[in-house]
């Protein structure tokens, strides 16, 4: 019988902590058909803008739509690559420079599937999920982030 998947929450309030990533990795030690894991982490960068230096990004989202879309992306990527596991976490709220705001984690028997799926997930998350980042500058100014 095929496993039926349902939408999962991908949102985390605040930064994604290294300990959470370690726990997530450790959870896969019992899955002995995995040969490779690919992980992408997005980290807040202290970009220099004419109006000041970025010190944090505040993330908001259209939650219902984002979760529906994330589920659609998950299903597409599971259908396309022979993956054992896939995990997506995105932060909401204020995330400071140097902190992690995105954690994408794929696992497969052979490394290529995990690597390609991870890259594709990151691209699609950035392009298709209704999430917005407001950059908070050291001048107390704010400006809306634009993905390039």
């Amino acid at each position, binding site marked *: 019988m095929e496993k039926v998947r349902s939408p999962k929450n991908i949102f985390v309030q605040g930064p994604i902590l290294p300990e959470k990533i370690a726990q997530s990795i450790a959870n896969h030690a019992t899955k002995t058909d995995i040969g490779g894991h690919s992980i992408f982490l997005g980290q807040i960068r202290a970009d220099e803008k004419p109006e000041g230096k970025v010190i944090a990004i505040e993330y908001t989202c259209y939650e219902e739509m984002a979760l529906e879309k994330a589920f659609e992306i998950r299903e597409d990527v599971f259908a396309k690559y022979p993956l054992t596991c896939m995990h997506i976490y995105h932060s909401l709220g204020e995330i400071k420079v140097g902190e992690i705001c995105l954690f994408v984690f794929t696992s497969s028997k052979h490394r290529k599937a995990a690597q390609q799926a991870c890259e594709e997930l990151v691209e699609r998350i*950035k392009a298709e999920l209704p999430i917005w980042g407001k950059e908070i500058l050291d001048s107390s100014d704010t400006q809306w982030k634009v993905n390039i």
Partner: protein
Amino acid sequence: MPHYIQLKAFGMLAEKIGSESLELVNPGSSEFLRQQLLEQFPKLKSLTFRMALDRKIIQADTDISQGQEIALLPPFSGG
């Protein structure tokens, strides 16, 4: 019969409109809605945004029925 619809606004659009939700008389279609919004909030004219109907992005002019969920989406910047 005229009825009201609920609009959600996000990110920069919520800031420009001054609210994250808005109630207005259903103009009937997404294109009429866009025109009405630009008249009511001239600041939106300089902004790029898309609309979602029941959490799906609208690609072309689409009728809006009572009870549907409408959202104004500025360009995404997650990740």
